[in-house]
């Protein structure tokens, strides 16, 4: 695990620098939206990472309920935290772009509604972890929530579509906002890769600190027991 971490960190730095260079130096400025469109490269990447994290939470949760492996539990917890981080980034970068382009910071478009609700679900997940304490039943409750959250995603998608929307389709070219220049697509790809590596690295770090915290707690308990014994 440590070797993977040691490979991920420099790899993440290199791709992140490449993404920054591409986005700010090489990729041409979008004709209609101007300079603010460059935030897309990180916005779209964050969206992808957010969903990847939340699906990882569900997968790891299912494995935990099935096998009771503490590693799966820690992976779920770490992914939820990193997912909430990127979901927050998504909710910050979105309005920065929307204000000059749509004229408003926020609108109840299906995708925006969807994102803010997802954010709420997984902030709830983190609260459950925080308030539940450090025993095994919290891990089970969190796993149940992790699974229910992802099962809710497709139903949420359909239900928010009952509201009407204006969000552009960046990749599918179904509306304005498609990436015309090939460099734009390279920029999007590299920045998405950089954010994915960053998220993976953060998850590994977080899972490790969680494991260490658990070990410290176990040692502390043993120490207290020894001190209490005559």
């Amino acid at each position: 695990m440590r070797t993977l971490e040691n490979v991920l960190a420099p790899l993440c730095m290199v791709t992140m620098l490449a993404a920054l260079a591409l986005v700010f130096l090489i990729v041409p400025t979008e004709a209609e939206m101007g300079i603010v469109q460059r935030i897309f490269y990180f916005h779209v990447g964050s969206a992808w990472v957010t969903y990847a994290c939340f699906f990882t939470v569900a997968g790891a949760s299912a494995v935990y309920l099935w096998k009771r492996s503490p590693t799966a539990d820690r992976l779920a917890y770490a992914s939820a935290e990193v997912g909430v981080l990127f979901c927050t980034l998504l909710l910050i970068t979105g309005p920065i772009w929307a204000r000059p382009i749509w004229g408003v910071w926020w609108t109840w478009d299906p995708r925006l509604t969807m994102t803010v609700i997802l954010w709420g679900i997984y902030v709830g997940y983190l609260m459950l972890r925080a308030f539940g304490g450090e025993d095994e039943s919290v891990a089970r409750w969190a796993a149940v929530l992790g699974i229910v959250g992802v099962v809710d995603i497709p139903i949420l998608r359909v239900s928010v579509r009952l509201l009407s929307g204006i969000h552009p389709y960046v990749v599918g070219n179904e509306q304005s906002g498609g990436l015309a220049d090939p460099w734009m697509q390279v920029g999007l790809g590299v920045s998405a890769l950089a954010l994915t590596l960053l998220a993976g690295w953060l998850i590994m770090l977080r899972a490790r600190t969680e494991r260490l915290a658990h070990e410290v707690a176990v040692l502390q308990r043993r120490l207290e027991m020894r001190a209490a014994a005559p």
Partner: protein
Amino acid sequence: MRAALVILRKDLRIEWRTKESLSSYGVLGVLLLVVFAFAHDPTPTEAPRLAPAVLWVTIVFTGMLGIQRAFAVEREQDCMAGLLGAPIDPAAVYLAKLVGTLLLLAAMQVVLVPLAIVLLRLDLGGALPGVVLVLVLGDLGFASLGTLFAAVAMRTRAREVLLPVLLLPLVVPVVIAGVKATQAALAGGLADGAEALRVLAVFDLVFTVAGWLLFQYVVQD
């Protein structure tokens, strides 16, 4: 199945003798509705558009508190441990609590809906069967996840806050589809709300099954 019936009968008997949930949450629901009604006193033309939102927000808020009751009665003297120690499937406990919550929600709505008609100046016309259908579907969806997470929240430190925080974002599809379908029903045809009704039906099916399957992981020790 028989175990579920016994638990349900026990819960209903407790409720019948104390009348705690129904009276307290019923009154709360009425007050919420009154506050909403004078916060935005709708004209008769606005009412069909506005009333479903008011009705559903009231249902969700009172329901949130009502669902906690289902497990709060088991907390006293650690009844939950006894219930789970009994040689019955935990899924039976889930089923009993789900049906109990549904009955509580239905009883509250028997009061709330006529009141909404009066206070929000709704002209129901022939829309009543449609509205009832939407309410039943919405209640089941809300109660399916509510029962599951009430059992979770009950056993944490921050139970009063945690249940709404966990449940509200998860039941957003019920609220959106419930409001849209109620609007369609009031506008004269459930046909316009077919999509919303489908969302409600799928939500009910998926999360009743999910709750049934996952409840054992929530309560086991």
